[in-house]
């Protein structure tokens, strides 16, 4: 039986289920039926449940969907552009850049005499955006100079290493409390965002997605490499800017608001290729969005440790849960052949 026409509806159904599952899990036990009833009718069994669901779990689940899709989209773009199955959203040093911004705010802040308590989640996000933007513009400067995309990839990785080294130096000289705050940020969190931040994040991601949709055809042509793409009338130089800008905005703003989230961006495009068995970006882009959103929702649900009061950091969960799944899937198939 050919499942392909049913894959998207099936995916949407799964997305809805994961969303509801995600809403009903957490340190406070709320029955699944009550969650649905509350959402549909607006009558909540307890007033605290309404608070928890509407102001905490609902935005968190939305952020999981947004972050999962954005990271997967930028990973797919990078993999196609660099024609490298190992590329991900952070290969150009964007997450390190966001990390540097936050590190400067938190770690250097103690040296400069801010009190840690005055650091608001808004200022962390802003510092992350500034850091990611700075690295992005440095990479762009290089992209403008070099013609070869492999060189750009290597330079991006080097930038990432250099920036991480600066963060290490900052950590070395900072106090224990600041260090803990930074470490917690670097583990990632989907739940720290209020509704207004979710709004800003959605707008940023929308801006980052537009260039993806206008260049689906070019990404398909780029599957044959830059030379062929050019011979088919694609401006590869322009495409490089589109790719850098789009992935920069997508991965950069997710990292700024939620901290680094590993693994999703590299793995999801491969999962989408396996599920839909195609390399056509008209299918892969929406497919990656769907798979990325579902995967991050499920990872977050696992991280809630149902029945326990504490949660696991999302960055650890994505790697702990996701890596074995993907390794086992990939070992069954020849990744580079299917790429």
């Amino acid at each position: 039986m050919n499942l392909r026409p049913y894959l998207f509806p099936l995916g949407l159904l799964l997305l809805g289920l994961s969303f509801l599952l995600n809403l009903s899990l957490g340190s406070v036990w709320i029955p699944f039926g009550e969650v649905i009833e509350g959402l549909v009718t607006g009558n909540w069994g307890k007033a605290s449940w309404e608070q928890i669901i509407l102001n905490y779990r609902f935005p968190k689940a939305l952020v999981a969907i947004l972050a999962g899709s954005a990271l997967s989209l930028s990973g797919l773009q990078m993999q196609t552009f660099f024609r490298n199955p190992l590329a991900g959203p952070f290969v150009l040093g964007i997450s390190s850049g966001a990390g540097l911004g936050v590190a400067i705010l938190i770690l250097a802040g103690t040296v400069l005499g801010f009190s840690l308590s005055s650091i608001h989640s808004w200022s962390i996000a802003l510092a992350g955006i500034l850091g990611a933007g700075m690295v992005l513009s440095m990479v762009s400067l290089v992209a403008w100079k070099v013609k070869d995309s492999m060189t750009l990839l290597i330079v991006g990785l080097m930038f990432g290493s250099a920036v991480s080294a600066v963060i290490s130096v900052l950590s070395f000289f900072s106090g224990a409390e600041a260090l803990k705050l930074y470490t917690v940020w670097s583990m990632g969190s989907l739940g720290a965002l209020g509704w207004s931040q979710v709004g800003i994040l959605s707008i940023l991601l929308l801006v980052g997605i537009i260039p993806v949709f206008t260049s689906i055809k070019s990404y398909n042509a780029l599957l044959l490499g830059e030379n062929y793409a050019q011979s088919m009338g694609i401006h590869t130089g322009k495409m490089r800017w589109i790719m850098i800008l789009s992935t920069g905005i997508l991965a950069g703003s997710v990292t700024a608001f939620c901290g680094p989230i590993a693994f999703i961006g590299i793995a999801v495009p491969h999962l989408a290729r396996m599920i839909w068995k195609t390399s056509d970006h008209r299918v892969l882009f929406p497919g990656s969005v769907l798979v990325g959103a579902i995967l991050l929702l499920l990872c977050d649900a696992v991280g809630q440790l149902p029945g326990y009061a504490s949660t696991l950091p999302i960055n650890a969960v994505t790697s702990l849960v996701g890596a074995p799944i993907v390794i086992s899937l990939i070992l069954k198939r020849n990744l580079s052949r299917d790429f």
Partner: protein
Amino acid sequence: MSTRKAHIALEGKGLSLGYVHQKQRKEILSDLNFQLISGELTCLLGPNGVGKSTLIKAILGQITPWKGTLSLENQPISSFDLKTLAKKIAVVLTDPVFPGNMTVGQLVALGRTPYTGWSGKLSLEDHEIVEKALSDTKITYLKEERLSEISDGQRQKAMIARALAQDGDILILDEPTAHLDLVNRFEIMTLLREIAKNQDHAVLVVTHDLDIALETADRFWLLNCGTPLIADRPESLILNGSINQLLPGEKYAFNLSRGKVEAQLLENQLKIKGPKEQVFWVEKALLKAGISRLEHEVSVLSEPFTIQTEKGNFSSLDSFIQSLDS
């Protein structure tokens, strides 16, 4: 043969090409003159490193000539934008192409990229052109196969079909027969010849395959270090000896009667009698084995193959050569 009048698809006049490397101008090709003619299969031959790829890059508009003009439909190539150029010139490059998940049909459909809208959706006409490209290259049966599951020869045909789907007048192929077996090499070149003849395309093939090029090409372009580009019918180049330009030094030469390049037979004192073909191959085997003189005359019989010597008769070259060694 096409009844349409052959026209010049591409023309180079006094063309000089090169790179700027670390602020030093490095001229690779100078003062080239050529005409690429529609309905003809042209083969560009020359040693490695002579600048064939540079010439192709210039034709694709990727590098601008330092001197001279390169014109398409009597307008300089640089005056065309990338998309218009893509509708006129299609290429098959040596770059490896491995999106294993892509089907042959999808690959060929990519050739329609310059014509489609933002999402790359094919119109009815696009679909027809893709089907035609598949049937012209005789790979319609491969349409649903994935690129990772077909042979190198089939993949090369698929790449040619993709170039055909781009629907330009000019087709440029960089070593399309490298890494292929003998039969596939013949098939590809014959296919390209058919495309040139039936569809009135100008086909330019860079190749090192002199034997097959001789069989199939209408025109040769010989490119050699330090000499101007020579363009003529292959047969004329053989008759006037220009073909030997491809073979620097005295060691190899083009054998007029056999139509192929051979190591110059050394002056030898092999005394062999018998039918011409048999003598030729026996002589060749002996020279290859390092034997350049025989004490006594031997004779070769064809049916059954026998070498008669004063030491006795041998039924195979192996045993004969062994007897000489001992």
